[in-house]
């Protein structure tokens, strides 16, 4: 690797928000990313880190009918992924374009809403490298939503035929059958009045536990009963992520007030607080392998790498109270600030857990290695 901390770049054609690690690809370190362009033809890029680790290669380029707001790779099949997309307005749109969309038949139109949102499961065609302009194959569309869809969740720890999709008001549990290419709503729950859901995370340790974020709290659901089990009262949470290594640990990112680490057994107050970013902290993600290693991306055009082990926290609490002013600078390992715009997309590689990919709004993917900071541990 040349230059250690300097990242490897890759440019998308348009602006983009979401990047996902292709977990099921055990042979290569690859990422999926989709563009967010209102007026142009959107694309999904399959990017692979070259074996030397010095280059990002575009392994596949697929056109996607609409701008992509959320993208998640299937954890057990590297060719399957999900997207959430919006189509813009029905009424202000040029007619031919509109007709094209009708043809694809994937889009769900919501009466009364100016914008329309959709979510779908896609499959990358086989032999895609040999085709000139390969088309994505739609496996299923998650078309039960009537509101603005926020995200689609896969269970992160392995093969599971269920999917979760979250819109402003509802939580849907889908049963996905890849071979039959169908997705059916298994159950649905409304979050209740005055709770506009904004996103969520699926507990990697418990197949039945899902956390959803809304304006004033994080809510926890049991998927068997579809009942609320717990809640953390907290305003303006942008993003939540479960710790892959430690059970009960959830990390949240908030607009103004940084990053909080919660022990879900003690939802009253956070276990730990990190200062976060100068502006909003947009995304936060825990390393799948190294304990307490957390990445956060912010709208101040930077990505911060934190070390905040929670397991040792219990023992060290008394100490940390005494030393708190001195230790304040401690958890921040590095700040990657070589971005031109806000960073919204962030993903650890599960194959090479010391590598992460970040995506800034100007469509630039940067893959970095955190190896130089691991040795400091």
């Amino acid at each position, binding site marked *: 690797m040349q230059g250690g901390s300097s990242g490897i770049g890759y440019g998308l054609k348009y602006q983009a928000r979401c990047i996902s690690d292709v977990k099921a690809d055990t042979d290569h370190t690859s990422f999926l990313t989709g563009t967010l362009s209102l007026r142009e033809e959107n694309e999904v890029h399959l990017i692979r880190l070259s074996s030397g680790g010095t280059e990002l290669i575009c392994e596949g380029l697929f056109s996607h009918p609409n701008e992509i707001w959320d993208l998640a790779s299937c954890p057990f099949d590297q060719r399957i992924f999900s997207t959430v997309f919006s189509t813009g307005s029905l*009424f*202000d749109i040029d007619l031919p374009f509109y007709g094209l969309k009708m043809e694809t038949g994937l889009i769900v139109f919501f009466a009364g809403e*100016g*914008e329309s949102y959709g979510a779908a499961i896609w499959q990358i065609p086989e032999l895609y490298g040999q085709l000139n302009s390969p088309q994505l194959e739609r496996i299923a569309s998650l078309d039960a939503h009537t509101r603005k869809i926020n995200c689609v969740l896969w269970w992160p720890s392995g093969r599971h035929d269920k999917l979760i999709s979250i819109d402003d008001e509802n939580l849907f549990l889908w049963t996905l059958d890849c071979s039959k290419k169908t997705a059916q709503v298994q159950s649905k729950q409304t979050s209740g009045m005055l709770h506009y859901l904004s996103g969520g995370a699926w507990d990697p340790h418990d197949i039945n536990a899902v956390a959803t974020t809304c304006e004033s709290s994080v809510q926890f659901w049991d998927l068997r009963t579809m009942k609320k089990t717990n809640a953390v009262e*907290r305003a*303006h949470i942008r993003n939540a992520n479960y710790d892959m290594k430690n059970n009960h640990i959830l990390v949240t990112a908030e607009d103004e*007030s940084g990053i909080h680490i919660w022990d879900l057994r003690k939802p009253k107050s956070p276990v730990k607080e990190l200062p976060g970013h100068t502006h909003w902290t947009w995304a936060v993600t825990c390393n799948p392998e190294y304990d307490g290693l957390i990445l956060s991306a912010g709208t101040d055009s930077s990505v911060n790498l934190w070390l905040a082990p929670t397991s040792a926290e219990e023992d060290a609490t008394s100490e940390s109270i005494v030393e708190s002013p001195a230790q304040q600078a401690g958890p921040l390992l590095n700040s990657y600030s070589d971005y031109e715009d*806000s960073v919204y997309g962030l993903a650890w590689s599960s194959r090479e857990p010391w590598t992460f990919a970040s995506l800034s709004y100007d469509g630039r993917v940067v893959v970095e290695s955190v190896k130089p900071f691991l040795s400091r541990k």
Partner: protein
Amino acid sequence: METDDVPLDDKAKRMRDLLSSFYAPDPSSTENAPSNPGTLDAINTTSFDADQYMNLLIQKSNLEALLQRHVEMAAEIKNIDTDLQMLVYENYNKFISATDAIKRMKTNIVGMEANMEQLLDKIMSVQSKSDGVNTSLFEKRERVEKLHRTRNLLRKVQFIYDLPARLEKCIEAEAYVDAVKFYTGAMPIFKAYGDSSFHDCKQASEEAIAVIVKNLQGKLFSDSESIQSRAEAAVLLKQLDFPVDSLQVKLLEKLEQSLGDLQLKTNDIENASMESNDPKQGKVSDSVHITAHEGSVRGFAEAISAYRVIFPESEEQLIKLVQDVVVKNFETTEQYVKGRISSANLLCVLRTIWTDVLLMDEVLSEAVLPVFSLEAAQIALKQHVASSFNYLLQDISDALLRVNVSSKEAAEEHPLQVALEASKKAVLQGSMDVLLDFRQLLDDDLQLLVQLRDFIIDWVQEGFQDFFRALYDRFLLLSGRNSSSRQDQGLTGAHGEKVLAGLVLVLAQLSVFIEQTVIPRITEEIAASFSGGGARGCENGPAFVPGVICRIFRSAGERLLHHYINMRTQKVSTLLRKRFTTPNWVKHKEPREVHMFVDLFLQELKESASEVKQILPQGLARKHRRSDSNGSTASSRSNQLRDDKMTRSNTQRARSQLLETHLAKLFKQKVEIFTKVEYTQESVVTTTVKLCLKSLQEFVRLQTFNRSGFQQIQLDIQFLRTPLKETVEDEAAVDFLLDEVIVAASERCLDPIPLEPPILDRLIQAKLAKWKEQNLISP
């Protein structure tokens, strides 16, 4: 033979050895040399073996040596031969002289027997004569002895009969010592014959003794008697087998009672010293109390010393008693210290106690009262120091919390400024007062305090250290930012009410003030009058570490300032969130006027600016900026350019637009949006504005707009330029951010055609006029 002795000394000695060995009782002892047949020396032993010797000799020696040996041996044999002859001769000689001696003895002993018999006769006659004398004198001596005994007895009887009278006399003369002596002398007789012959006598003397006992008791308890006589009385009573212990207990009770009085008096003094805070009460009553108290203590001390003389074994009880007094006094002092008192008052109390202690120590040094009270005083003083700091902390937070009250009333024009000044004063003046107060403790020459000097210095230093830590915690609590029970907008904090943003700003500025002014002052003051100490041990270093405190407050100041900005921007964020999530942007109607959220936004900024203006100093950079703002026409021209460019790109409607903005960014110097916040009005306001605009941009990016929606945003932002420029320091960054918002909106627009410049101008002018009008009315 005698003549032989001198020349033949050596020879004679050998001879005598041989002789003595011959006559020696134990033949084995002659074998002084252990036999060793294996060597040539064995020739002179009993176990001598001639053959073996020969063999050995032949084996070991050559011919010459053998010859030599032969000659030697021949000489030796000759020698031994002569020795032998001499021995025989001498033996014989001695034998003859012995026979002579025996002959002479026989003749001398014959005449002795007759002399002996004569001596015996004489001794016998002496003995018989002495016996005769003895028997003749015996009778007379017997009589004399009998007469003498009778006389003694008679004298004793006489004494007994006289005893009552004698005792009476003694009572009259108050010669109790004699009386007791007499009585105890007569006691055995009364015991033996009291019931029979001397009955009356006994009764009479017992009566007299009862009187004596009564008198003695009276004497013992009467304070007017001299201690000496009282002690004597106690001793006499003891001799009379009177139960002294009960007396002792009684007397002790009396002492304890007087002690209770003493205790009450201490309270009185505290009351007095508290009252003496009132100028009306004056010091007269105080001093009166003190003298009265001193008198009673002196009396108590005397009583104790008397008691000690009277009952010498009672020390332990007394020590306990006295220590009790001191403990109780210090307990009340500690109680007293819990309240809010000045060191002068404490000093007053301590001085009183110390004089008491010294007085008592004089009479009862075994109680080690000074040491004892030193320990107690240590505790009391420590508490005093701690409570002083507690009250200081309380004062400061009170001063701060007044912001809440006063701003609710809203009567004052600059509530925050007032609060800041008040709290600044509370911190500085309060700390100085506390220091001055403690100085009094140090300057006093009271022995008690002099001994505790080092401790006091340490406590004061430690106290400050802890105080500032506590103050820091309190600041965090007040700002709602303490880590355990965290604030947030919607959440009600630990103290039930929403934290005022202004208060946070006051706290931030106060932290800076503490770091820059208070700590150096205190450090100076401590160095001047509280240096030394060191009772804590050198390895810990001085208790008060200004560096650490400064660091804490510097970081606290920064954190609080950021927190303030955060709170402000959060408010705006909620405003913006509402603005952008509620309307349906895709079906937005054509813009008619600038949206009212702009007003609200500016309102928030104004509020913040007014708070900031009260608290923070003006930045120096301001003037510089002013001169710079002459070029504002240029910047507006560049806006024009930008607009032109936008329209052009719209006509092209090409995807190259994104590329173009990228290119523009490349050529533009990267504007540092998030710079370090400084403690100036401009810096804080600018940072707030920047963060808000950035949030605005982010909110815009999350929406999709139709043409009218985009135009509305364009209008709003264009309007914002003018008022923002007036308030903000870093025009370039704000301009850049405003542009960014418009770019973001155009990127998220399906049909980004901007408003025609004339329409835009007209709408903005209308709004500006309205805004200015409002501004003229409101301030």
